[in-house]
């Protein structure tokens, strides 16, 4: 199993890469010891979004399905968490049930929508357009639930102003449970990210992952190698969308609040920006790039104020025009080429043995 951590679908291998990764992880674990608690919480907040980006990387980068619907599942799971948590009276019971309900809701919705699209042979740009349409329709729908008639149990959807009143995720424990916030939130999310990242990495390099890239490169050929392409696509769509759902639950828990504008445009395009900027074909690039981009965009907004959006747009354009494979992946390629040259191997792909 563990040898699947390295393979043709993931950048970086060997002691140098894992050593560096371990150092980054150690630094991240030690960070709260000397940093301002606000910065720790803020970094934890950035981690919330990375699950959604990794899910998109899996669907789009590895399997070639551009889903514009990450925020659809984000929103479903976020609202699902809120409704269940509120109706079960919050606390450890309500929030844990809410977490489960949010993820199940996202997965079930992805299974239904995915079945409709994938078995209806909707692909390419149209896959993106259908997912975007569904996403916008959900945002419009939730936006007009302002009236008191729009309530599920005690939980009011509350239209554009958003739903609130749910507790943060709470683990069972003494004194009504251990509330997942601030530094604890940060550590739990690091743990979750490391697990999801490693599992996805193994998945990408497994036989399953090989099939995914085959589908991305040429779905018809993959089918004629005996692979039930649509089942693989559906599985990946459900998995990637459920990761978006996880982000949705974590976001709602973090701010105890969710609104339709977390679902509609421009929110829906953000995951695509992160993943495209980072390098969509690689999980590590997505992980690192999404974090850097979230940090960069927030810093731009804080320090350059009015010109922030101009700079973000320009950054995006420059990345696409000058580093077509993505910013982080571009740097990764550069590093790989430097080290490879030293080892006198012809090209990085030579490392594709299994």
């Amino acid at each position, binding site marked *: 199993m563990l040898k699947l951590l390295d393979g043709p679908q993931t950048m970086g291998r060997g002691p140098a890469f894992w050593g560096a990764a371990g150092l980054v992880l150690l630094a991240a674990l030690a960070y709260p010891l000397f940093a301002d608690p606000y910065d720790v919480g803020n970094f934890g907040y950035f981690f919330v979004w990375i699950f959604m980006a990794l899910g998109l990387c899996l669907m789009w980068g590895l399997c070639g399905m551009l889903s514009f619907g990450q925020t659809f599942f984000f929103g479903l799971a976020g609202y699902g968490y809120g409704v269940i948590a509120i109706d079960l009276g919050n606390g450890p019971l309500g929030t844990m049930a809410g977490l489960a309900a949010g993820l199940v809701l996202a997965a079930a919705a992805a299974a239904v929508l995915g079945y409709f699209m994938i078995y209806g042979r909707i692909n390419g740009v149209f896959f993106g*357009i259908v997912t975007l349409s569904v996403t916008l*329709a959900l945002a419009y729908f939730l936006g007009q639930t302002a009236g008191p008639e729009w309530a599920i149990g005690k939980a009011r959807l509350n239209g554009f102003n958003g739903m609130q009143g749910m507790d943060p995720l709470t683990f069972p424990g003494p004194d009504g449970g251990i509330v997942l916030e601030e530094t604890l939130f940060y550590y739990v999310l690091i743990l979750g990210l490391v697990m999801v990242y490693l599992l996805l990495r193994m998945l990408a390099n497994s036989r399953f992952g090989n099939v995914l890239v085959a589908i991305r490169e040429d779905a018809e050929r993959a089918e004629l190698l005996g692979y039930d392409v649509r089942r693989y696509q559906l599985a990946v769509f459900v998995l990637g969308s459920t990761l978006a759902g996880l982000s949705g639950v974590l976001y709602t828990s973090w701010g105890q609040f969710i609104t339709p504008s977390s679902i509609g445009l421009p929110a829906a395009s953000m995951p695509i920006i992160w993943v495209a900027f980072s390098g969509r074909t690689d999980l590590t690039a997505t992980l690192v790039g999404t974090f850097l981009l979230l940090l960069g965009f927030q810093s731009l907004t804080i320090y350059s104020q*009015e010109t922030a959006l*101009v700079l973000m747009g320009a*950054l*995006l354009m420059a990345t*696409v*025009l000058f580093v077509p494979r993505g910013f982080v992946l571009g740097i990764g390629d550069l590093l790989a080429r430097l080290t490879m040259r030293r080892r006198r191997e012809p090209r990085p792909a030579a490392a594709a043995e299994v």
Partner: protein
Amino acid sequence: MLGNLFAGFYQFADVFAFLVLSAAGLAIIFGMMGVINMAHGEFVMCGVYVTAASYHAGLPLPLAQACGTAVAFLIGMVLEAVVIRPLYTRPLDSLLVTWGLSLVVTQGTLVLVGSTFPGIGTPLGGFRVGDYTFSAYRMVLFAAAIGVLGFVWFLFLRTRFGIQARAVMQNPGMAQALGVRRNRVYALSFGVGAGLAGFCGALYAPTMSLIPTMGSSFIVESFVTVVVGGSSVLLGTAPAAVALAVIRTGLNAWYGQIIGQIGLLVAVILIIRVLPDGFTGWLTRRTA
């Protein structure tokens, strides 16, 4: 009675005009080059702002509108050469780059021009049929929409550029081998697409409040029309606009605007499911 009949037509004409005018530019760029132009709304906004500025500078409205269209056309040509051309083999990347462009343009306009811009005022006044009064300018918009369809028809079927453009669309490699200068065709197509977006903005400038983000008002409708229409402006956009205008007018009238908006999106999903290349694919398959 006459009033109600005319009112029904007027509503349809109004939605139809909005769909055709806002979608034509996007459809040309998508159909010709496979590029999804996320900055489409900003070309519309460019048309609006240039029109309004020229009008306030003293030009008569029609001339100001011509200015708005021309400026959008020229900017489109320049942008094609600078940011779109390197990306023809990567259609998804052109989506990202135009999205970045739209951020830069919207916020750049806000910083440079300010958060609001003085409006123009709708010309021509109103007229009365039966119990209702109507805006005469809305009829001009309807005529302009028909005119745009006619212009596109003429451009693609009756001019040298059109013949070359269709050749490039069918088979870029072969067209190039036959001596068609592909880059020039693409640059002109993008320019025409941008110009039509600017024309849409120029026409709607006197009817809306002007802010830098106003382009987004046109985006959803134009995308929906292009998706439902498919890749051909001639075969797709016009029938799609008719169909969607009927759906939307009906839903608006009987169930209100929110259902009209959600209904439009549901229609898109169903039509993609049934007709994968929109009306274009359906019509070409029937005639093939």
